[in-house]
């Protein structure tokens, strides 16, 4: 009806209005902070969880995902990898053989996952070559040497230079056995990997496990997050229809990560929606009070010939203005805080330990996007406007005489 009238009505009780504005602003800041951080941490979770070992895409035998078995291999893996390095950006490609073996030192034996890696290319798709705590990473593609997880090394009581016996089954079912020299220990940041992983050169792996030129996975990394599906389709096309291989995304090869994120998100939403509901009700409460004490005034307006719809619209306008003031302050402050942490990174005590377990760094960069910043204010706006419908619609039930005689 009249924005100026609405605006002035808003400031009839400045302290009350400021308190409401503060409540809206505070919850906006809180939500923007939490949401940007939450989204930011997922990117980091994903990047780091994948960067350690899994990569973003893997080319595997079509049945390998369902039931990983020695015999489900990709033929001429190094040839395919070479072709990918030539034709596909960003050319971060490495071939792996994957087997299981009983790993024995002089004193003890443990089950281990034996990975044949290309020493030259593995650093492109995995951080493990760069987190060698003692010794060095593999160098010679055919040497009988290994780097192993630090935890596994501790369990086996192995020192640098010690010999490690690996005993497993080859692709053809024959016994695969080798003795390798331990040249390095790694701490990947993923406890699970540090406990079971033994990496040996691919050439040696193929020989020991009678693989020929085949391998189990071609790992691809370095793809822009938004390009993942496009790249998958492109590579699928490149492989050809009957390549005997399938391109798998990380969501398939590491389903637990996706589930963990979804669960975490759900928890977040429950919390956020509860917060918004609580804030909305407190706003509704003050707003209802403000409207009730003006009953007589509304009665006068009705007597003057204002329709209930116009008065209702005035109330909606007042609540819109109130919310917008709160949201503007909230978005400005929230954006300021988010930008600060975007530049400086956000961390808190315990994050480092927690992060080490899941393989992400000690500080989180909040995600700044229209969605992550705009979601909270939009939700609050919708909730408060819906809430304001209640006092606005009450005007339709107002009888002029009674309203005028109200005090």
């Amino acid at each position: 009806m009249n924005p100026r009238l609405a605006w002035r009505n808003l400031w009839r009780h400045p302290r009350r209005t400021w308190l409401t504005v503060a409540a809206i602003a505070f919850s906006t800041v809180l939500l923007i902070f939490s949401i940007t951080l939450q989204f930011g941490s997922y990117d980091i979770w994903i990047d780091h969880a994948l960067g350690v070992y899994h990569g973003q895409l893997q080319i595997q035998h079509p049945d390998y995902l369902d039931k990983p078995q020695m015999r489900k291999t990709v033929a001429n893996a190094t040839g395919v990898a070479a072709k990918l390095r030539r034709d596909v950006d960003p050319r971060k490609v490495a071939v792996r053989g994957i087997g299981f073996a009983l790993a024995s030192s002089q004193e003890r034996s443990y089950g281990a996952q034996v990975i044949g890696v290309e020493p030259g290319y593995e650093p492109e798709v995995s951080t493990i070559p760069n987190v060698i705590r003692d010794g060095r990473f593999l160098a010679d593609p055919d040497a009988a040497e290994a780097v192993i997880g630090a935890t596994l090394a501790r369990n086996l009581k192995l020192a640098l230079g010690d010999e490690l016996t690996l005993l497993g089954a080859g692709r053809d079912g024959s016994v695969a056995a080798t003795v390798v020299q331990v040249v390095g220990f790694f701490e990947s940041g993923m406890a699970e990997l540090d406990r079971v992983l033994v990496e040996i050169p691919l050439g040696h792996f193929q020989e020991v496990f009678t693989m020929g030129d085949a391998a189990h996975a071609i790992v691809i990394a370095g793809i822009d997050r938004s390009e993942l599906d496009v790249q998958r389709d492109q590579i699928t096309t490149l492989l050809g229809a009957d390549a005997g291989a399938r391109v798998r995304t990380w969501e398939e090869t590491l389903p637990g990560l996706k589930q963990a994120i979804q669960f975490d998100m759900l928890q977040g939403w429950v919390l956020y929606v509860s917060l918004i509901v609580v804030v909305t009700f407190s706003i509704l409460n003050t707003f209802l009070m403000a409207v009730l004490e003006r009953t007589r005034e509304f009665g006068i307006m009705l007597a003057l010939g204002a329709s209930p719809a116009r008065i209702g619209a005035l109330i909606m306008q007042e609540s819109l203005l109130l919310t917008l003031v709160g949201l503007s302050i909230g978005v400005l402050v929230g954006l300021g805080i988010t930008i600060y942490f975007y530049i400086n990174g956000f961390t808190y005590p315990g994050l480092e330990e927690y992060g080490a377990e899941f393989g992400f760094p000690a500080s989180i960069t909040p995600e700044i996007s229209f969605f992550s910043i705009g979601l909270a204010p939009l939700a609050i706006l919708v909730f408060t406007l819906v809430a304001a419908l209640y006092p606005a619609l009450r005007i339709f039930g107002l009888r002029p005489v009674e309203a005028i005689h109200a005090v």
Partner: protein
Amino acid sequence: MDDTVVCRALTKVYQEDSVAVHALRGIDLVVPRHDFLCLSGPSGSGKSTLLNLIGGLDSPSAGEVRVDGLKLAEMNRSELAQLRLHRLGFVFQSYNLIPVLSAIENVEFVLQLQGMSFTQRRRKARAILAEVDLQGLEHRRPGELSGGQQQRVAVARAIVSEPSLVLADEPTANLDSVTAENLMALLRHMNEEHGVTFIFSTHDKLVMDYSRRLIKLHDGEIAADERRT
């Protein structure tokens, strides 16, 4: 048909906790155009009730009200709002004004509801405020005006839309006698200059003396109806 208000067998019964209060018991009343009518009577005699029914702020238990020939009972809520906006003006006992609007904005409020442009309504509101002797006070808020000045603004607002009827329920009740007489002189002036029909109520002898027709209500009935000169 040149009557502003026609009431036929107008009855209002309030239901108070199973007790029926007969506020009006069959009022027959014809108010011709340009009348300046005063409702008097003891407290509880039904003055306010009658004014509210004529203004369409409340609905009767029986009987009918016609304003400018229009039957109020046949009008829906928005038609009643339109009627009040274009044909009626109200002045209440006190706290008539919208507190966050200045005197001139209060007067303009009605014109704005009617959809008049800003410059037009500003000019009109300014002129009417001058007529009620409030020039220079246009931009004061109600809280910064005396009771008498507030009532003058209310009169200006009631008259500015050029209604055919102004209803005023004890407009002078909160004013001292000098201020009350000034306000009555103003209402009389408006009645004569603008040709608006007035119906007002009062307890005050002094105020009754300004009327041209005096109706005495007693216990919901018209006890006397006299023309004065």
